[in-house]
């Protein structure tokens, strides 16, 4: 089948979802009111609460939520064939992610821009706050561990990306200085930055850097992981304007350039899908598609992380309540498009089925490397770039994303550790907090086995924690709807499905880790399972309280 057809069907389905389903939800379920005064106006302070043009707001929301995860998940999941991955991404975006992101935005905007954490504290009770801290800690731990493994795999498999990846840090440092110290207008540094980045990619293509098999007694992959955490720890301690801010910015621009290139390449190259629709010839030891598909693709189908962004920052900048539909739902569609591109790269970017099978030799193999290779071939055929150059571009894109997520994640994790320390009555300073965060993440990355597919063994666990967070947000939206006596089915069904699949997946993986005698991951699995049962229990308790006539007044009435 032609990948263009797949692309068109996917994009059309998601557009229809936006045009019709989100309209229905906006009018009948969330009942958006164009005259409602949003927190951006009622609490306007020029800092957190700033009414923002909906297109600009969408840009922020999208670039904050899009990362390496919507690429890695589908890249692993196509091992079951492209149909399951495609269906889950498209239907997930329409019926799960869209409703979830849009709902988080709505719930927060109707509650003075409070975050999911605060809302869970209010609606679930004092335990809600601790539950939220536990889930968020697990998500961040998994993100940092999994992404370190992803990046080190890529740096080893695509040695041409080494120079541009580390060079990008210098580009960001220079831009930061130009903007902050010399107050240069952004246009030229942006253009210059992107040009230098692409020159570095050319340079990297010409001079690939391969580490020797062992460095300081460590394997190349382990050494990169060590280096990455050292970098992330330093980056998370530096003032944000020095590195994080310009890096995020350059990555945002990169995202739009990269996504545009990929879609153009597919359009011009019109490659055929070589991977099987349903893979009947699965490698031995591959886990069963149900439930693992639903936790392997988290971002791209539904991701709890979006709820954090939507309720944490985006909701405070919503100019009109009716903008929530575009920003929230279409933000999810943007992420779905990224995942769709990843699916096409990993299934159409190979010459023959045999080539594809040689990459997907085991579950967790292939993955993002397949995205880089396949996408490189697509860029070569569609736009006439040299294949290794295309692969380098995509590897750099994926690594930069994973890298920014890592340093931001480490920073957030330090805050969580400090907050938990405060709850326990201890003062944890910045350096100690960072060291603890790096320590636990590194233990996970190494303990999971930094070699071969072992590093990716934690990926489904990351997906599971992300789904749990999404479940918590969906539970909050559902409770709000029930309290106001509105139909709750549209969020309740996704919620039940997600929690059931997460718990099922945790049980399946528990068996796997036990057989593999991986006690660290088995322990993590048990901890996550307890958190999952906890979320389920709290959701049931909160929903059983039923309709609350007072709630209809408090949450729907414009704030004074």
């Amino acid at each position: 089948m032609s990948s263009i057809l797949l692309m068109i069907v996917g994009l059309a389905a998601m557009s229809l979802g936006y045009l019709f389903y989100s309209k229905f939800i906006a009018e009948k379920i969330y009942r958006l009111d164009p005259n409602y005064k949003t927190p951006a106006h009622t609490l306007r302070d020029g800092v957190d609460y700033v009414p923002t043009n909906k297109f600009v707001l969408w840009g922020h929301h999208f670039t904050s939520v899009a990362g390496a995860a919507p690429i890695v998940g589908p890249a692993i999941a196509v091992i079951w064939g492209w149909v399951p991955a495609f269906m889950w991404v498209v239907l997930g975006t329409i019926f799960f992610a869209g409703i979830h992101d849009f709902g988080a935005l709505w719930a927060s905007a109707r509650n003075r821009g409070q975050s999911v954490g605060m809302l869970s504290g209010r609606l679930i009770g004092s335990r809600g706050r601790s539950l939220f801290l536990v889930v968020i800690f697990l998500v961040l731990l998994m993100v940092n561990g999994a992404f370190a493994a992803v990046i080190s795999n890529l740096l080893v498999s695509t040695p041409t990306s080494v120079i541009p990846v580390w060079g990008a840090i210098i580009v960001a440092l220079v831009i930061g200085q130009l903007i902050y110290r010399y107050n240069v207008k952004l246009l030229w540094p942006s253009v210059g930055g992107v040009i230098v980045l692409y020159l570095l990619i050319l340079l990297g293509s010409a001079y690939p850097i391969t580490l020797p098999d062992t460095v300081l007694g460590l394997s190349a992959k382990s050494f990169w992981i060590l280096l990455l955490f050292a970098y992330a720890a330093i980056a998370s301690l530096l003032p944000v304007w020095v590195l994080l801010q310009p890096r995020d910015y350059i990555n945002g621009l990169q995202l739009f350039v990269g996504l545009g290139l990929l879609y153009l390449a597919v359009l011009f190259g019109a490659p055929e899908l070589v991977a099987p629709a349903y893979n009947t010839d699965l490698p031995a030891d591959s886990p069963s598609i149900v439930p693992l598909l639903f936790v392997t693709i988290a971002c791209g189908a539904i991701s709890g992380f979006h709820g954090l962004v939507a309720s944490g920052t985006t909701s405070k900048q919503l100019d009109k309540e009716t903008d929530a539909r575009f920003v929230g739902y279409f933000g999810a569609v943007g992420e779905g498009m990224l995942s769709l591109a990843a699916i096409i790269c990993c299934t159409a970017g190979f010459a023959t089925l045999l080539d594809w099978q040689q990459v997907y030799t085991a579950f967790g193999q292939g993955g993002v490397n397949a995205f880089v290779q396949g996408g490189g071939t697509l860029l070569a055929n569609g736009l006439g770039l040299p294949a290794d150059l295309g692969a380098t571009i995509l590897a750099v894109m994926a690594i930069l994303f994973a890298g920014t997520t890592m340093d931001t994640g480490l920073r957030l994790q330090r805050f969580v550790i400090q907050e938990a320390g405060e709850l326990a009555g201890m003062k944890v300073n910045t350096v100690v907090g960072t060291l603890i965060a790096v320590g636990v993440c590194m233990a996970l990355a190494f303990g999971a086995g930094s070699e071969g597919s072992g590093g990716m063994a934690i990926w489904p666990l990351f997906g599971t924690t992300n789904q749990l967070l999404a479940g918590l947000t969906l539970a909050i939206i559902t409770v709000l709807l029930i309290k106001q006596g509105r139909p709750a089915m549209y969020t309740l069904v996704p919620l039940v499905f997600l929690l059931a699949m997460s718990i099922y997946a945790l049980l399946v993986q528990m068996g796997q880790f036990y057989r593999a005698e991986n006690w660290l991951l088995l322990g993590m699995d048990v901890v996550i399972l307890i958190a999952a049962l906890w979320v389920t229990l709290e959701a049931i308790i909160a929903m059983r309280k039923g309709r609350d006539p007072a709630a209809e007044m408090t949450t729907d009435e414009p704030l004074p």
Partner: protein
Amino acid sequence: MTPRPFFQRLSDGLKEFYVAPYRRTFARARRDEDDLFMLLVFAESLGVPNPAAWYTLELMPELYERFHDWHQRMGMEHSPLDHIGCC
């Protein structure tokens, strides 16, 4: 309103794109610094000897308006100073 030149609008859009995600972080950092400054200015009144008291005294009236928010942020529900009756 006359339409602004394209490059101007592009440049402004990029600036918003650069600044907005970190607006809150910077505002927090600034507030922390202001809080410390507040402590220095009111040090003498709070019983902490301050060699620059002569100079900071002059700044006090400038900071009165922010005093209420400050003491609440610092975890004191009511004004710690008798001569400032903000609440």
